[in-house]
């Protein structure tokens, strides 16, 4: 990597086990990557180590680095492990229990013993103020300033470090929240104070309270971490121009990020989705199903027209895995990435019905799958992959970690094959099929929930176990093409580099379309645009290159689900309500195949101000030599047995070489399986494109 340029961009992703670092030289498009161990006690140390390592490995100086973009699981982990600060809630009189009562819904209908998520703020730290806003946004009662001052004394006495202020209908009129914040800030200068209207002004008191409280709970810790990191970067001559990856796929400068840490809650996976859209673009595919299967979970996200789909709600810290409703709800813009199933470390067993069940229990990395030989005795998905020949005992992790095939067979025999009266191979195939089938169902339903058909997408596989399962999963869903990008193992960190500087605003404005005043919306959009431009400008984006997009969430009156409709600015400017109605009908028809003769209504507006998307054209660094390295028996469902299958080194596969299945491609972090009746081809960027109907 050359050092005569001073514009290296570095992406850093802190994961559970490894901190991944990716460095891009924009001049040449060359990518380098590095993995170092995560340092849980002080994650900044891992980041600094990783950056130092990659600079050293490529003989680059700190001064040559232009920007560092960072994503982290710190926020999510602080919520999952409840390692935030002691936090109080100040809310409308009569409503302090909203946070505890939740939605009153059981998330699992046959389980009498479900645990409900425990609120982040205990009841004795939830304070009430006599104030009230009406649904229409009129102040019915303003808070009494003296009462607020007494409250400040109570908060001081309670020794809390952060406080969230959430009043009913503040998303419509923030006056009361603002007033209380001002007085508290005066009285308690060291206190972290979060108002719900600033964190996320959306309707729904439970979800908004939960979001504001979560933001307050993690903010002091996150701010401390970021400040330390910026300081240390500066000390080492690196740019203090630190950006953070948001869960919605945008990046913001660290000063903004520390205000809204809750917006970083899924930043690692968001990076993966952004990377997938870049890989997809390079392969000239715009509609992708990003499939990320790691050690403990598999996730999926749809990319439509080159953009990952987003949603405005998310659940963190689920008490029961996969169960919607068992976690803390957050109203934040996020890339709509959902958990669809188990990971490589998930444990397989015979369930009460005498059928194969995989997960949700996981062997994680310790003790790990039986084949790791680290003390794990129960069979996992990885063990099945090894028995079926998808993984090779000798070349796992580039040969750095030998796998014990006999241990895998023994575990599968004992826990599955014998109880079910199957051969070890059939039982392993049962694990593989079961895990793939449940992922196929979950991904198909996720597509439907987003109003799309999964068959219209190309699957793109990332994560260590993704490529191993991708083709079989695709066939089950009726997906015809699979892309396995180069560097799938560090996709998140790479994705950070591909993310534009952007900021998203959501404003609730519930009204029938017929009563819409486009002028008022145009004014609101203009204000948000100004604010957004300010934020992206502070990040060095010139306002001329930034773009604002506006969309509206609408439905037919009487329905409960919204459809997002992009609204061109000129339609707003022209005040053309009918056109908005037509755009909505067209979108609805595209989703559900029909329209209704009913009035439409508006729920909220979404405004995104974004700088240009960095253009990335990573170049594959091919190794010398022939790609075909040998042959090994691999099990295929299509043939019902083992087939002697050619094994290729994926780093030596030349573009335009078409290789017919069955075939196996080895890469450092994973193995790509190409089944019979399929063919694979490398593109100039190193993507391996697999056509399943060859």
């Amino acid at each position, binding site marked *: 990597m050359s050092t005569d340029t001073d514009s290296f961009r570095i992406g850093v992703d802190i994961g559970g086990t490894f901190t991944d670092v990716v460095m891009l030289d924009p001049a040449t498009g060359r990518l380098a990557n590095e993995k170092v161990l995560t340092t849980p006690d002080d994650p900044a140390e891992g980041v600094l180590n990783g950056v130092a390592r990659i600079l050293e490995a490529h003989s680059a100086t700190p001064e040559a680095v232009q920007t560092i973009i960072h994503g982290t699981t710190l926020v999510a982990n602080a919520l999952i492990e409840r390692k935030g600060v002691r936090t109080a809630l100040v809310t409308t009189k009569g409503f302090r229990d909203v946070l*505890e*009562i939740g939605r009153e819904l*059981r998330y699992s*209908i046959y389980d009498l013993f479900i645990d409900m998520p425990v609120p982040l703020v205990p009841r004795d730290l939830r304070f009430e103020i006599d104030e009230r806003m009406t649904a229409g946004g009129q102040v019915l009662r303003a808070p009494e300033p003296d009462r607020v001052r007494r409250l400040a004394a109570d908060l001081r006495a309670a020794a809390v470090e952060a406080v969230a202020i959430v009043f009913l209908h503040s*998303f419509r009129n923030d006056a009361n929240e603002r007033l209380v914040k001002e007085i508290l800030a005066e009285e308690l200068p060291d206190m972290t104070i979060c108002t719900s209207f600033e964190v996320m002004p959306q*309707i729904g008191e*439970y979800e908004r309270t939960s979001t504001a409280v979560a933001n307050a709970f993690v903010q002091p810790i996150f701010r401390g971490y970021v400040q330390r990191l910026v300081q240390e970067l500066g000390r080492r001559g690196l740019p203090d121009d630190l950006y953070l990856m948001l869960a919605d796929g945008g990046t913001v400068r660290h000063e903004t990020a520390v205000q809204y840490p809750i917006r970083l809650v899924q930043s690692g996976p968001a990076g993966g989705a952004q990377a997938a859209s870049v890989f997809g673009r390079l392969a000239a595919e715009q509609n992708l199903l990003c499939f990320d299967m790691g050690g403990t979970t598999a996730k999926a996200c749809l990319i439509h027209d080159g953009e990952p789909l987003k949603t405005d709600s998310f659940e963190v810290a689920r008490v029961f895995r996969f169960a919607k409703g068992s976690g803390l709800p957050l109203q934040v813009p996020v890339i709509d990435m959902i958990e669809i199933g188990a990971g490589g470390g998930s444990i397989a067993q015979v369930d009460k*019905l005498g059928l194969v069940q995989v997960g949700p229990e996981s062997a994680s990395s310790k003790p790990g799958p039986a084949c790791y030989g680290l003390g794990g005795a129960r069979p996992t998905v990885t063990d099945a992959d090894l028995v079926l020949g998808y993984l090779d005992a000798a070349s796992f992790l580039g040969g750095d970690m030998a796998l014990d095939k006999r241990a895998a067979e023994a575990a599968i025999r004992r826990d599955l094959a014998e109880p079910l009266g199957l051969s070890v191979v059939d039982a392993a195939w049962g694990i593989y099929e079961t895990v793939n089938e449940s992922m196929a169902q979950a991904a198909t339903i996720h597509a439907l929930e987003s109003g799309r058909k999964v068959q219209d997408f190309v699957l793109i596989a990332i994560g260590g176990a993704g490529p191993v399962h991708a083709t079989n999963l695709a066939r089950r869903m009726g997906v015809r093409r699979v892309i396995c990008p180069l560097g799938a193992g560090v996709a998140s960190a790479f994705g950070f580099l591909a993310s534009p500087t952007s900021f998203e605003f959501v404003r609730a404005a519930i009204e029938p379309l017929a009563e819409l005043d486009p002028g008022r919306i145009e004014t609101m959009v203009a204000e948000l645009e100004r604010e957004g431009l300010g934020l992206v400008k502070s990040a060095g984006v010139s306002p001329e290159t930034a773009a604002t997009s506006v969309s509206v969430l609408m439905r037919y009156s009487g329905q409960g689900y919204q459809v997002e409709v992009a609204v061109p600015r000129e339609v707003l400017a022209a005040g053309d309500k009918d056109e908005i109605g037509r755009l909505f009908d067209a979108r609805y028809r595209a989703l559900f195949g029909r329209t209704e003769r009913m009035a439409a209504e508006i729920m909220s507006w979404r405004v995104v101000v974004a700088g240009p998307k960095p253009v990335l054209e990573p170049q594959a660094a091919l190794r010398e030599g022939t790609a075909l390295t040998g042959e090994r028996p691999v099990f295929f469902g299509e043939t019902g047995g083992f087939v002697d299958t050619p094994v290729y080194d994926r780093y030596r596969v030349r573009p335009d070489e078409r290789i017919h299945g069955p075939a196996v491609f080895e890469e450092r972090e994973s193995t790509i399986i190409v089944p019979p009746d399929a063919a694979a081809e490398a593109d100039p960027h190193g993507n391996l494109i697999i056509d399943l109907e060859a």
Partner: protein
Amino acid sequence: MNQLSPVKVGVVWERLNGLMDQVAETCVRTSFSAVVRENYDFAIGLLDARGRQIAQSRRSVPSFIGTMSRTLTAMLEKFPVDTLQPGDVLITNDGWLGTGHLNDITMIKPLFRDGRHLGYVGSIFHTVDIGGAPSPSAKDSYEEGLTIPVAKIVSEGAENPLLIDFIEANLREPEETLGDIRSQFAAYHRCSERLLRLLDEEDLDDLEAFSDDVLDRSEASLRRAIEAIPDGVYAGGLTADGFEHPLEIRCSLTVRGSEIVVDYAGTAEQIERPVNSPMTFTKAYSCYAIKCALDPGTPINDGTFRPIRVTAPEGSLVNPRRPAPVWGRHLSGHYMPPAIYGALSKVAPDKVIADCGSPLWNVYFKGRREGTGRPFVKMFFMNGGHGARPNQDGPGCLSFPSNVSNQAIEQFENQAPLLVEEKALVPDTGGAGRFRGGNAQRLTFRNVAQTPVVVTIRHERVDNPPRGLLGGEPGSGGLDLVNGEPIPSKSQTQIQPDDAVTFQTPGGGGMGPPGERDPEAIRADLTSGLVTPEHAKLHYGYDV
């Protein structure tokens, strides 16, 4: 193909359950009914050629458990299977053949493959408007709306115009109900296409071998769980508040080997008030209760319920004769689980929960909107405290045995001229015990319109609070107040501008003797304020 491998069965089952959920998701997103969308008050089911239900959408309220195959049997009596054609759809909302009240419409469509009858896809959904004048004072089911007898609503692809006209003429808001009916047709079509593809891909000729297998597995799973319960006859029962006088519900559980008989002999006779629970509803909640306690981890199908028999005297509150009024059937039907758990607690105390603050509470507000003067009717749901469990406290305000969420106050205040002044947990309302019952909630609504608002309620557990189990104490009874003064729990009251109406749901029952409660847990309750020092002293003998 006779024997299927367990791997094959598992994969096909996953696919069929997934297919049901996919079709359900399509229905939810296009539905005009809030109860369908928000409360999942609907279900999609797949039945084999012999009419046995194999799979059902996983998330729905328990009312529909096992009803689809019963309804299909009644349909086939009128339209024998050999007369059914591709493109037919059968319909009925008869409460005695379906799910117990007219508001649930069941439709079933036969499926064919290459001209051969393959099975059925069916759905049940709740419709708010079914005509008539349902009210707490209805004397018979004729008052409660339109009965659609078993009929072909679609015949070989063509809608039956007479039937559609007839339904339309009898409803106040026919667009909503007919809109939802027609969206089911699209859902069946989608389901049928995917099912055929699935059979091709899995190389199956029909559903029979698969359904034999899964029904047997489901049956065996529950049988094994029942075998773990000692044989014997276990009695339970409780008292419902009723209308003019309380109503006794008696239940005996006979466990013999791998079978259970639930019998409601001794239960009060049916009454001329809309609280009678037709047998289908009684069965659904009885089976649900047993499934939750003994075999919660497996999907449901007709095999699941083979080891359970439910009987009740004809003409009783839980097996009424036509034309008993049944609109509020849940006011009796929701008592089946606690009656069964009371009996089961004697032999399986670790598998049951104490009484919850249910039957489900709700309220109807009716009045005129400010400004426009347009009439509004708003329904609001409120759950009571959940009963204590054998190993942990009951959560506050959690829905059981139904599963209905609340509505955001910020949404509600946009839809009705009422200001909610509190939605709060009430201290000391959870029954004391080794494990405490969940706390009740209190909600106060103030009429901020210039005109009166009519408040209709039908609440249980006011005179007879949720019971504790195994030495646990009862939760608190519910309360209904206007301006602080009690009103009858089944009533219609007009509240004037600026009047306030308050509802306090019942608290959950406790489990185990209060003396055995961990002092740490008592201290935590005192800190949170869910229990007051006075209550701690009185019920736990705990001095602060």
